[in-house]
C-alpha cells in the first residue's frame, strides 16, 4: 500500500499530512474491523473526537530547519530512506535521527543537492 | 687496576664542598659523580660537577615548529573544508591564519619545554634515598665521588660518609 494513499500532501507540499479519520475508518470498516485499536479508532470517530498522533520524526524546534517533502519526492527520494520500512512496523519508530544534520548533508552531497545552509535553515 | 668504590659524603656548606672537591682532585683516578643540593650550586662549584648541556632549547624549537604547523593546518584546512564566504574575505586569509599559527607556536613551545625539562631531569622518577634526601633537606650538600678503594678512607675523613 503506497504511503501517499493516505499522506496525500507528500507530492505537492512541504508536509505529507495525515488522512482525516473518516478516511481511516472507511477502509478499516472492511479491514480488521475487530482489531482492538481499530475499534478504538471507530469509537473515536463516532464520538467525533480528533486523534492526537505523536510525531516520531519531529525536528527539534531549535534546529530551525525547513523540510520540504515534495521537493524530495520530486528528486525520487524514497519515503523509506528517512522513515524506514514503515509498512512492516506495527508501531512506527524513528529510524533516522532527524536531528543529525550530518545525515542530511551526506545525502545532499551524494545527490549533488544544494548544501547551502539557507536551503534548509530559514 | 685496583677496584673502585663510590663514596657519598655530606658537606655542610659550599666551602666545605669546595675543599672536598679539591682533595678528591689530588687522588688520581677519582671522579665527581654528582652533587645534590636543595638549591642550585654556586656557579664556581657547579662547573666542577660534570653535567651535560640541557637540550631544552632544542625541545622548545621543535615543539614550536610542530605546534605552529598544526595550528596553521587547522586554520587553513578547516577553512577549505567548508569554504564559506564571509565579508568577501579570502577563504584562507593570511593574517588570521598567521595569528593562529603564532599562538600554535607558543603553545607547542611551552609544552615541549616542559617535556624537555622532565626528560632532562629524568622526572618523574622513583629513585629515592631518604637518608640523602633528609640531609639535602637539612641544607647539606651531598657529593658522590667515584674513587679507588684505597683512597676512600682518606677522603672519608674529610666529610661524613653516608652509608648505603
Amino acid at each position, binding site marked *: 500500500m503506497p504511503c501517499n494513499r493516505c499522506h496525500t500532501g507528500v507530492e505537492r507540499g*512541504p508536509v505529507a499530512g495525515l488522512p482525516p479519520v473518516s478516511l481511516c475508518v472507511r477502509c478499516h470498516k472492511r479491514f480488521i474491523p475487530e482489531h482492538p485499536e481499530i475499534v478504538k479508532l471507530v469509537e473515536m470517530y463516532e464520538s467525533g473526537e480528533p486523534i492526537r498522533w505523536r510525531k516520531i520524526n519531529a525536528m527539534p*524546534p*531549535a*534546529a*530551525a*530547519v*525547513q523540510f*520540504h517533502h515534495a*521537493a524530495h519526492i*520530486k528528486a525520487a527520494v524514497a519515503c523509506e530512506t528517512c522513515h524506514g520500512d514503515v509498512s512492516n512496523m506495527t508501531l512506527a519508530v524513528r529510524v533516522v535521527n532527524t536531528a543529525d544534520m550530518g545525515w542530511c548533508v551526506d545525502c545532499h552531497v551524494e545527490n549533488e543537492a544544494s548544501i*547551502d*545552509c*539557507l*536551503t534548509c*535553515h*530559514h | 687496576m685496583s677496584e673502585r668504590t663510590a663514596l657519598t659524603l655530606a658537606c655542610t656548606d659550599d666551602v666545605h664542598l669546595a675543599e672536598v672537591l679539591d682533595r678528591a682532585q689530588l687522588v688520581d683516578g677519582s671522579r665527581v659523580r654528582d652533587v645534590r643540593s636543595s638549591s642550585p650550586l654556586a656557579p664556581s662549584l657547579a662547573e666542577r660537577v660534570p653535567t651535560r648541556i640541557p637540550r631544552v632549547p632544542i625541545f622548545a624549537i621543535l615543539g614550536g615548529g610542530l605546534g605552529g604547523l598544526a595550528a596553521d593546518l587547522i586554520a587553513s584546512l578547516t577553512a577549505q573544508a*567548508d569554504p*564559506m*564566504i*564571509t*565579508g*568577501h*574575505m579570502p577563504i584562507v586569509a593570511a593574517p588570521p591564519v598567521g595569528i593562529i599559527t603564532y599562538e600554535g607556536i607558543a603553545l607547542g613551545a611551552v609544552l615541549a619545554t616542559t617535556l624537555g625539562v622532565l626528560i632532562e631531569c629524568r622526572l618523574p622518577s622513583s629513585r629515592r634515598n631518604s637518608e640523602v634526601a633528609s640531609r639535602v633537606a637539612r641544607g647539606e650538600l651531598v657529593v658522590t665521588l667515584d674513587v679507588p678503594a684505597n683512597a676512600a678512607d682518606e677522603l672519608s675523613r674529610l666529610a661524613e660518609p653516608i652509608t648505603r
Partner: protein
Amino acid sequence: MTRWGMVVDTDRCTGCEACVVACAEENNVQTVGEEEAKKGRAMHWLRIERAVEGTFPEVSVKFRPVMCQQCGEAPCEPVCPVYATYHTDEGLNAMVYSRCVGTRFCANNCPYTVRTFNWFDPEFPEPLDRQLNPDVSVRVDGVMEKCTFCVQRIKEGQRTAKGEDRDVEDGDIQPACASACAAQVFTFGDLEDPESKAAKLSKSPRARHLLADLGTLPGVIYLEDQEWNPGTDVS
C-alpha cells in the same frame, strides 16, 4: 548568477509602517512587550527612520525604511566565530539560527544596527500561535536574527519555477514589505539581470547606498527624494 537586491524609493515613503507590520507577520518576529521594549529590545527587522531637519517653522522630515542592507562585503560576516552568518552565492547575507551561539559580535559590527537578538524565548499566547508562518522557523532565545529578504519566499518562488521548468522571472518574488506597500516604495529583484526593474532603477542618478563611504556594497539601494521643480512642473 543572481544578486538579490532591493531599490527603495524614499520619495514615495509616507511612513505608514504597513511594511513593518507585514514583516513581523510574515517572519514570525516576536513581540517583546512593553517592559522589554523599554529596554530597547524591540525586534523589528525593518524600521522607518525619520530624519528631522531645521527648526520650526522650517522643519522638513524625510522617511527612510531601513532593513538589513544585505551587504556585498558585510562587516557582520567575518566576525562570527561559527559561520552562523555568511554570504550565499545569490548575494544574500544569510543568518543560520540553529548555528548561532549568541556572541552578538555581528550585531556590534553592523554599521546599520539592523540585527536584533532574541533575549528570551518568544511568547505567542494561544491562539496567536496559529498565525505563525510555517515556512519560517520560530527563533529560540539566545540567537541573532535580521531581515532575510524573505528568503522563504525566494525559495518558494524558485521551487515553483523549477516545478514549471522555467527560470524565476522578474517580479515573481516579492518580500512581505514590498507586497504590503501601497506606494510601491520597494522594488525587489535580481541586480545582475540587466532587464530586471530593480537593476534598471539602481542605475538611476538618484540611487545611493546608505553609509556608502564604509564600502559595504549594500544590496539595498535608496533613491533619494526629488525636489518639486516649478520650472518643469508648471506650464
